[in-house]
């Protein structure tokens, strides 16, 4: 399994600065997502460049470095496979729902997953993306909830995320 480090927050900040005319945090995120996806799809998925670009995008999530092992990992890594899966998910989600995301809603899991959270008052959807499947839990109005313990990365299956998000927003 190929493991690459994501450790360059400065690059991410530069990316943000280059997002001309885009001042809203959610717009910046969407802008960067689109750029990453574009680059990712225009270049070979096996090239280090595209993977690194994605991982830099991922590091929008957090600046992860330098703490003690008790509290954090000192050098967070994410596999290409989880990165690929994250791209699949982002591609499948309607852009209107990406608008609701900010950087703090995309976070790396301690064991190499990536999680995304949408929240609207008491309603929320938490998505955790792993190497073989994703899981999610959605708290909806009136105490109803929806969940999936094995969401595979195919467009047809991922479409259910849009359906759930449409109930939240």
């Amino acid at each position, binding site marked *: 399994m190929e493991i690459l480090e994501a450790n360059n927050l400065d690059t991410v900040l530069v990316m943000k600065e280059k997002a001309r005319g885009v001042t809203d945090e959610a717009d910046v995120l969407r802008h960067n997502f689109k750029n990453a996806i574009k680059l990712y799809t225009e270049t070979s998925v096996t090239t280090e460049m595209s993977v690194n670009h994605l991982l830099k995008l991922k590091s929008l999530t957090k600046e992860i470095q330098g703490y003690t092992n008790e509290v954090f990992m000192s050098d967070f890594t994410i596999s290409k496979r*989880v990165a690929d899966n994250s791209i699949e998910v982002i591609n499948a989600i309607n852009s209107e729902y990406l608008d609701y995301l900010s950087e703090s809603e995309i976070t790396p899991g301690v064991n190499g997953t990536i999680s995304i959270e949408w929240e609207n008052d008491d309603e929320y959807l938490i998505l955790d993306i792993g190497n073989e499947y994703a899981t*999610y839990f959605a708290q909806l109005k009136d105490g109803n909830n929806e969940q999936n*313990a094995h969401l595979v990365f195919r467009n047809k299956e991922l479409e259910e995320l849009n359906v759930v998000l449409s109930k939240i927003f």
Partner: protein
Amino acid sequence: MTSIWEIKDDEYLYRNVYEKFHVKKGKLHWKAFEPPAVPPDRLRSNEISTLRPKYAIEEFVTYLGRQYSKGRDYAGFFRISSNNINKRHPKMWVDSTPFGDVDLKVCLCSHADIRCDYPSEQEKAVPPEFLQILKELSREAELCYYGA
């Protein structure tokens, strides 16, 4: 007489949190309850270290918090009652886990773990029921000392 190792349901637990990881828009993030990864294999552990304010003054809690991160991004600590943990799920409970120093011949009762017994395989997504639990806990916990 109650043993010092016994943690009653109404006892509070403290855990230090850090701005970039555990706090989102001034509120506690559910990741604050995710067990940390443990070297060398960095698999997610099944425990979250906490301090018992019954035996650890707040200054000691914040001192340790700043020590861990060398002062960087320290955001304070959250507090939550042990009952909130124990009632949540059969696979989640509070455990009295004293730590000691053999050389100093001391054993501290101020430490406790929140056990979170779900699968921790590398790159495996968190089961949905635990996503819910961690989120609910983050909403019930009180963020203390924040911004100080």
